[in-house]
Each structure stands twice: as C-alpha cells, then as structure tokens.
C-alpha cells in the first residue's frame, strides 16, 4: 500500500510540476489531466473487494486534488458516488487521514452547491478528526467551515480566527455582530479576490441579509428601550435613516424590498404594511435565530 501511495502521490505532484513548466513555456498543460484519468483507472482497480480497497480513498483524495486544481470539479461526482454507494466500502474502514481529506473536499463541494447543512456536517467531521497538530490543515478546513457556519447563524470567536490566521473573516464576523452592512461590504471588497478564489464569496455575500436582520433587531431593541409598547412597529424612515448613517444610500422602495425579503426568508417575523410604510413585528421572537438552520426557510 505504501508503494501505491507513493506512486500515486508522486504521479500527481509531478504532473502538477510538469503542467507548471509547460504553461510557462507557453504550451497547453495537459499533464495533470492525464494524471487524473490515470488515477481514475487506479481507483477502478482498487475499488474491488480485495484488501487493497482501503487504498481507494487515498486515490480518491488525490483525484479530488487533481480535479480541484483543474477546475473540473464535476468529475468528482462519479468517484463520490462509488465511494458512498458501493457496498465494498465501509467508510470507517479507511484510514483517518483519508477520511479527513475526503470530507474536506466533499464539504467544499457542498459549499459550491450552496448545500450548507451537508457542508457543515462534512467539514465538521474533517475538523474533529483532523489532528490538531496539523495547524495548516485545520486552517484549511476552517477556511470553509467558518463561512458555512456563518451562513447557519453560528459565529466564531475572534480568538479562533486569530489563532488560525483567518483574519479575512474578522470583519465579516464583526459586521454580523453589529449589523453593520457597510463593514460587511467593505470586508467583501477588501478580500474579494481571495474569496472568489476560494469560492466562498457567494456564501459570504448572502450574509448580508443576516446583517440586515441584525440591524433591524438593533433598531427594535432600541425602540423597545424607549417605548416598549410601540417597539414592534418599525417605521421605514427609521430604517432608511439608519442605513444612511451607515453610508448606505437606499430609497424606500429598496428598503421595503429588503424588509419583504427578510420576512419572506423568515429572518423576521411580522408583516409589512405598504400603506403606512411600517413593519409590524411579531410580538413573539420577532427575529428567530437561525441556530444551525440555513436561511430561506
């Protein structure tokens, strides 16, 4: 098995280097692609009933790396299907390191598909089983787990982000805490390239609704402190004013739309009266906590 691991690993890394070399010399880098299809064959031979089937997951992980590098992530599906449906495989039978890697990559795939619950599950598995001494691996997992958790309404401690050098999420988390739409936008802008590359941009962008929710909650709380009896009625111009204070210029139609979406997505309980331009909040738990549920009811 060790020999196989070595061969497979070397095959991939050498193919990567060859591609790098080739692209530098201006030719079409197709070595990694070739390595991918070859590894697929290797996987095919391992995926039998023999004792070597435990090596299949390692090959799968290498295949993931190849496909992610090539951007042909859709090719992962067939491998995943055979891993998860084939009866010869008992997932727990595989080595831990392969299981962690496998869950990491499948988790990333779920992030792409906006399937946050599954992504959370897989990434959590990877995180839990990942050796804590492998700081870099933990960081890689957190890089995707944090946005997933955020979108599920679970905010990490800043210390965690600091520890694993995930500073790019600091402002995002702060924005979520404060309901600061501007801060979120700035954070997204500042790390746009990075987020786009890692593929979490779209996930983070959707946090904006949660930020609006937090903003509304704050407004609600403030109103409640002033006048508990009328706290559940939030006037639109108040919201517009708050947004203006955040240097976000939105007219009343847009704000109305946001409110409607918040209500529609169940981030806010209540209704909107178009005639009086007032959001009437539910008296019980007007801002339901996501608490691990994805947005969008």
């Amino acid at each position, binding site marked *: 098995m060790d020999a196989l691991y070595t061969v497979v690993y070397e095959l991939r890394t050498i193919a990567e280097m*060859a591609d790098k070399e*080739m692209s530098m*010399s*201006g*030719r079409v880098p197709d070595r990694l692609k070739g390595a991918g299809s070859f590894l697929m064959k290797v996987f095919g031979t391992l995926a039998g009933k023999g004792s070597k089937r435990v090596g299949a997951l390692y090959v799968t992980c290498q295949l993931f790396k190849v496909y992610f590098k090539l*951007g042909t*992530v859709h090719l992962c599906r067939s491998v995943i299907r055979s891993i998860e449906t084939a009866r010869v495989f008992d997932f727990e039978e595989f080595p831990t390191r392969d299981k962690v890697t496998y869950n990491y990559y499948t988790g990333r795939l779920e992030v*792409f*598909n*906006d399937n946050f619950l599954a992504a959370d599950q897989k990434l959590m598995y990877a995180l839990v089983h990942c050796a804590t001494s492998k700081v870099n691996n933990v960081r890689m997992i957190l890089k995707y787990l944090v946005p997933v958790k955020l979108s599920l309404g679970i905010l990490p401690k800043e210390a965690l982000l600091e520890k694993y050098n995930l500073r790019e999420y600091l402002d995002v988390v702060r924005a979520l805490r404060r309901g600061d739409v501007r801060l979120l936008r700035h954070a997204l802008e500042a790390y746009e*390239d990075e987020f*786009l*590359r890692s*593929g979490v*941009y*779209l996930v983070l*962008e*959707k946090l*904006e*609704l949660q930020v609006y929710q937090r903003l509304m909650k704050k407004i609600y709380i403030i109103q409640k402190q002033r006048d508990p009896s009328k706290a559940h009625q939030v006037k639109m111009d108040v919201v517009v004013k708050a947004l203006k204070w955040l240097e976000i210029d939105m007219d009343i*139609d*847009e704000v*109305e*739309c*946001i*409110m*409607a*979406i*918040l*209500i*529609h*997505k169940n981030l806010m309980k209540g*209704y*909107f*009266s*178009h005639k009086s331009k007032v959001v*009437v909040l539910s008296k019980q738990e007007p801002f339901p906590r996501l608490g691990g549920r994805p947005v969008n009811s």
Partner: protein
Amino acid sequence: MYAAQETQAHTQAGVSGSSSTPPVTNPASVPDYSHAYPGYNADAYSYDNNTFQNYSYNFPQQGNPAAPQHMGGYDASAAPYHSANAYQNPSYANTTHYQTSTAYYSSVPPGYQNPVPYQHGNYSNQWAANGYGGYAAYSAYQGYPQHEANGPNHAVNNQYTQDYQQQWANYYASLQNGCKVEDSDDCTAPGTEPVVKEKALPISQPPPPGTQPTWDLNEPSYPDVSQANNPIPPENSGVFVPNPPTGPYHGDQYSHIQPSHFQQPSFYQQSLQDQPLQFKSSQDQPSIVQGQQVQTTQLHIPGANFQQKLYSSVAEPVQRRANKLQIPTNPRIVSTPVMNPKVIPADTIQGRKPAYLSVEAKPSSVKVSSDASAESVLKPDMFPPSLRAYVERALARCKDEGQKRACQEIMKEMITKASKDGTLFTKNWDTEPLFPLLPVAPASTNETVQGLDLPCSFSKQERSPTRRAKSRWEPVTDVKSEEKLEVKAPKDGLWNHFRAATTSSFSLKWEKQDNSGNKTKPLLHQQLEDAEGLKRAVKKARKSIMGDTQEENNSSEESENEIMVSGGVCLGTITTVETPEEKMRRQSRTKRFDKSKEVKTGNKELLKPRMSIGASASARRATALLLARSAGDGSGGAVEDINWDALTVKGTCQEVEKRYLRLTSAPDPNTVRPEEVLRKALVMVQSTQKNYLYKCEQLKSIRQDLTVQRIRNELTVQVYETHARMALEAGDLPEYNQCQSQLKGLYAEGIRGCNREFVAYGLLYIILHHGNNRDLLFSMARLSADDKKDVAIRHALAVRSAVAAGDYTRFFRLYKRAPNLGTCLMDLYVEKMRFEALRCMTRAYRPILQVSYIGRILGFTGFGALEGSYEKDQEDLDECEEWLRAHGAILVSTESELCVDCKASMATLLMPEPEDAVAHGDANLAVNDFLAQV
C-alpha cells in the same frame, strides 16, 4: 530512434563536459593562417592529390571495408549508434560496446557529437586532450572503423587517415572513370560532392527538382549502395550518371562524406589539403554552406595550427555563421558517430572562423569581381549580363576599399572557377547568392584571397582532385545527410534547423549546378533570410540539444520531439520514400511560406519565379526556412499548422448571399466566399430588413466560410458579435451560446472586439440561465480591475448581487437600465424573478398591496413615465394586472385602487403554463417564416 537519441544525448552530455579547449589556440593561429592559405592551396592541393591517390591505391582494401561500414552506420543513422552497429561490423554493431565503452562514449561524443557544447565555447584545450583520449580509446575498437578513423585522425593515426584518403581516392577515381565530366567541375553545390567528384556531380545530379525525389528514393537503398561503392569505385561512377543510380550515388556520397569528415581530422596532422577542399565547399555554398565548412575547418583547427590562422582571418561574423550552421550540422553529428567528429571540430568556435574565410574565398573565386582586374580577366562578352549584375551587387555591398578588394578577389576566383567548370553561362547568376563579406578582418581576407591567386588556386584545385574531393566531400556529406534527415523527419523541430542549413545549401547548390538557371532568387534577400533562419535554427538547435542532454529520458512531448529530431538526424540513413503526398505537402507548405515571406519582405515576385522553377529545391529550402522560423517562434507543433494551412481553402465565390448548408465534404473553393465578399455579406445582413431566420442563416453561412478558410481576425469577431446580438434580440439562446463560446476563444487570441460587452453578456448568462456557482466564481475571478469599471460589467455584477439576494427592486431597476442588449438577456429571467417577487410580497405584505406598486416595482410600468405618456403607463398597468391574475393572485378592489389580497393570494399563486409555447421551440420565430424556409 529513441534509444539512439538517448544515447546521443548521453554522449553529448559527456562531450560537452569533456570538450572545452580549442578556442584558445584558434585566435592565436588565425593571423598566420591567411598567409599560409595561399601557399597552402597551391602546394597542398597538389600534394593532397598525390597522397590521396596513393592512399587510395595503397589502402583500397582497408578503405573500402571501412567505408561500407560507415555507410551502414549512416543509413542507420536514424537510430544512430544502434543502427550503425547493426549495419556495420559486429564489433561496432554492438550497442553495448558503445555504451559500455565509457571511454569511447565519453571521450568520443564530446569530440564527435555535441556541436552544442562546443559552440558554447567549452571548446578549449580540453578538446584536444579529450578528443584524443577518446579517440585513442576508440582506436581500440576495431569494429568501429570510422570512429577509429576519427580517433586516429585526431590522434594522428595514419591508418585512418589513409583509409579515408583511400576512400576518397577511390571515389575520385570512380568519379573520373564513371563520369568524365571534369569540365563541369562545379563550384556548385556546397562543394560536397561536386568538388570532389565535381565532374561526376553535374551528371549524377539531375536538376534540382528531379534530384530531390531521386534522392529520397535513394536513401532507402542507401546502405547497399554505400557498400557497393566502396568495393567497386567504377560502379559508383557509372551509377552516378543516371538518376536511378543516384540512389547508389547517394550511398557513395555518403560514404565519401563520412570519410571526408574523418579525413578532416587526419588532415590537420598530415596536411592542409582538407582545408582547400573545405574552402571550396564553403565557397560554393553561401552562408549555409559555410557552416558546414566551418565545421570541417574546425576539425582541422585542433589538429593543425595553420588552420587556426585561416580561421583568424574569418573573424567574428564567421563565427556566428558557423554557430548557426552548426546547429544544422549538429543534429547530423549527433546522429551519426561518423558525423560526430566533424561536428566537434565545427563546434569549436575558432575553427569555424577559418571556415568562414574559406567560404568567402570561395565565392570570390566563383564570381568575377566588378573590378577592372576581374573584368579584364573575364572579357566582357564572356560574361552573361546576369553575372555582371551579380558582380555589381557584390561590390555594392562593400563599404571600404579593403572590402572591395577582397570582394573582387573572391569574385575573380569564382568566375574563373565557373568558367573552368563551364558553368559560367549556365549558372544563374541572378540567383547566385552573394558571398559573405568579411566585415571584421577585411585585410586578412584580402590576404587570403590574394594568396589564393584565383587562377592558380583554381587550377590547383581542379588538378588536385583529392583536395577537392575532400572539401566537397565534407559538404556533400552534410548535405546528403541533411537531405536524408529532412526526408525522414520533416516534422521534427531540430529538423528545421538542419533543414534550413541543408536546404539552403541545397538550393544554392542546385542553382549553381543548374544549367536551366531558373532560379531568380534574390541573392541578398536569400542570404539575409538564410542568415536569420540559421540564427534562429542554431539557437533552437542549441536549446533543444541542451534539452536533450539534460532530460534525455524525459517523457515529455517536447523532449520526445527533440529526441525524434536528433534521432532523425542520426538516422539520416534511414530512408523514407518520398511519397507524392509528401511532395504535395511540401509544396503547399512552401507556398505558405512564400506567402508569409511576401508579406514580410515584399519580395513576392522574386520568390515566385524561383518557386516555380526549382520546385523541389526551393520548396525544400523554403520549408526549411519556414520550419526554422516556426521553430524560432517557439511553436514546436508547427507541423500540424502547416498541414492545415496547406489544406486551407481559398474561396473564389463572389456571391454576397449564400444559403447555409452544413458541410458534409471538403469545401469547394468555388462556393466559398473570400474575405472581401464576406465583409459585404456582413454589411448586407446587418442592413437587411428581413427576419431573424434569414439573418441567422446568412450569418451561419458567413461563419462557415470564415471557418473553412481559417480566417480569425476582426472580421470574424464582428460576424460572431453581430450574430450573437441578433440571437439575443430574437431570444435565440442556443445560437447565442455558440457565438459566445466562439468569441471567448477569439478574444483569448487577442483579437479585439466588444470584449467587455460580451463579458457582461457572459456573466448575465451565467447568472440568469446557468446558475452554476463555480462558473460564476470563475468568471468573476477573471475580471480585472479595469473590467469592473466597465458599465456593462458593473451592471452585470449588480444584477448578480440582486439576484443572489433576491432583491427584486434592484433587479428591475437594473433591468430598465441595462446597457446594450442586457435587457434581452434579462428578459428571459424576468418572469421567474417576478414570480419570486410576487411570492415574497404576498408573504411579507399585509393586508393588501396595490397593483400599481407591484407594477412599478416589478418593472411593468415606468417606461411610460420616461416617454411622458400616461396612456402607456395605464397600458402597462393593465398588463401587470393581467399578469397577476394569470399567476393566481387574488385581486380586490378597494376605495380607489386595485389591490392584491396578499394573504389570500399566498396559497393560490402559480406559475402558469406558458401560453405562447410553440411546437418549434421558439415563440420568437414566426412559424410561417420557419415553414417558408423549409
């Protein structure tokens, strides 16, 4: 092949390391040489002849056996060593021997093969030491006659030299016997065969066109021939005359060539004889030839000091050329062990220089200088006008007196030689390449020239066949090997270099020899061309060779290709029959080359005649240059391009309008419109009033014609952009997609168009119709900062975020403000967005929501306000009401306004079946139009 290549690579590597010294000696010797040269020629020549003949007589047996073996090796050159081994002596034959004998390999290769290493300047003193050592080891190998010969030569082994000489003598004798065409003695050809066998050559070698094919044919038979030649000189001669014999002839040449190469080394020790020969060859062939010569001379250099002197006169320019030349030669050298010795010498920079000088001298000899003296020698009536023009051209290049004098001398010699050969009038002087000027050391050149003393040198040369034979042999070998190589491995990159060198030499040769004198090639142009091509070729060859050495076993394609090339060189002997297809392809390639050349240099007319005339030769040369060029461009896989280009159709149809028919066979040029007509067609389509179906068909036919003719330029982009826009307007997404993907490729090639507009379309399309997060991320990640400032792209990104957030207000605002045809793309998403928005609204608003508000937010209304017509607004509102009803909203009338009962509607909302669905799939296309087309 591969194995052979690898071995070569190994050897090369070894060589490079080991060989390093010669350069030092050369410079020092240079000055003296010029003086030595003149005297040398006269004396040496005669001497050589004698010796040669003697040798031949004395050692016929030895020489012959060796030669055949060599021949075999040559033939096999494809698999350099291996093949050689197989062919030749058992002992030699054993590859194992080769490999195992480290001494041989390491030492020999340095000397023999790697031209590159040498070029790099490692040629210093070590060369002698290493080379000798290697050779000594070599000598141990009895099985390897040739190699041994080489070794001996370096080591001053008399036997080898003798053998070679013998061979030469034999050849020479055979030549004389077989063809008594001494008169014809050409300055022609690279001096290879012609010089040595000058007499025989004219006869033996048919006119260029014919010859090439014959050559190819010959190659296969090559091995046999070679053997035959050695044993029976007379036979060879006989063979030479007719074309069929050419095959054998080649074999002979090869064998001769090989010997010549070997001989050179021996020469140093023994005499300067080789040099004269070399010089001749160099003279015959312009710059390209020089390279070969240079190599030979280089060989000499290490051995003989006087050679170095000669070299000195050459000066830097020579070196450069030599380098260039080397590249071509290198492959050969590498491939064939025999060749290697030559190569090595060639590699030595200094050695090259001398060769260069010799080259110059040669041209001079061939051509009469415009000077009074020269003219006096050649009486006015004696010279064809073309010769006069040539002389004038040559002189025009001279910048100072020294140069002029040298020039004159050279030309004098050339003309004398030509007149002696009887080619003065038959030669096409118009196409005769100008001999290279000696910019650096005009004085030295002059000296050499003077020393040569045209008449004397010529007479001597002629008289001393041995000398000539040697010199010519060397070039001949090169040429032949090159030719073979070309034939065999035309596709290889190294090849190109090789070919460039060879072909050029060939063409020159032909021109000279050719009585038809059809070649109208512009001399200067050609020279320049050659020089450039060679330079590049050299560069690349160096590179490739280096690559080979470095990554011998690398499995990457590149290395493989290169290996192939080198292998092809080595295999030179492996004969590939030139099929008609091959010829055709060459021809087409040549044409293409010419075309490109025309564009570049504007020498169209000049080139064309030449093409038509010396079809094969010129074609080869052109191909070679082309290949060299492409190689220079770093496009290793130019072969396929060439082929495709050859097949590309050039349309002749002048019809602006053309119906689209999917091609089921090769396009007929008569039905394909050329670019100008396609331009008109595009304008016509853009301005026509006819419906989309018609436009689409026309555009498709335009696209087809563009594709068939492989036109990829701004026009292509325009056509696709036009079609994409029209498809968008008509809502024809499949067609739009085709165009968009084509445009992507075209933009990627750097062809300018409305890039950003279509990037924005692409984004919108992904956002609205594709829905793939990864594609979207990928597209977004590729946007540059400047891109993001573009209106259309900014709009697309805003749409993206609106869609992502489900922000229908913003979406419809953006919908109204969409630049270009963004509205069309968004149109296709509006229905979905509206329905989502309605669901959201019915859920969020209580108790009722005004229809007017919905109409405004969901983009039904608001257009009227822009136009200032209330009626329009009302119409839109009615439309909105209709839409709401259709989607299951429950409307209630309140005091003043129609409203949606949100709570009641929540449960009843539905997405209606599209009423306007049509059987043919696209409601935008009128059925009648569609049927009319059918």
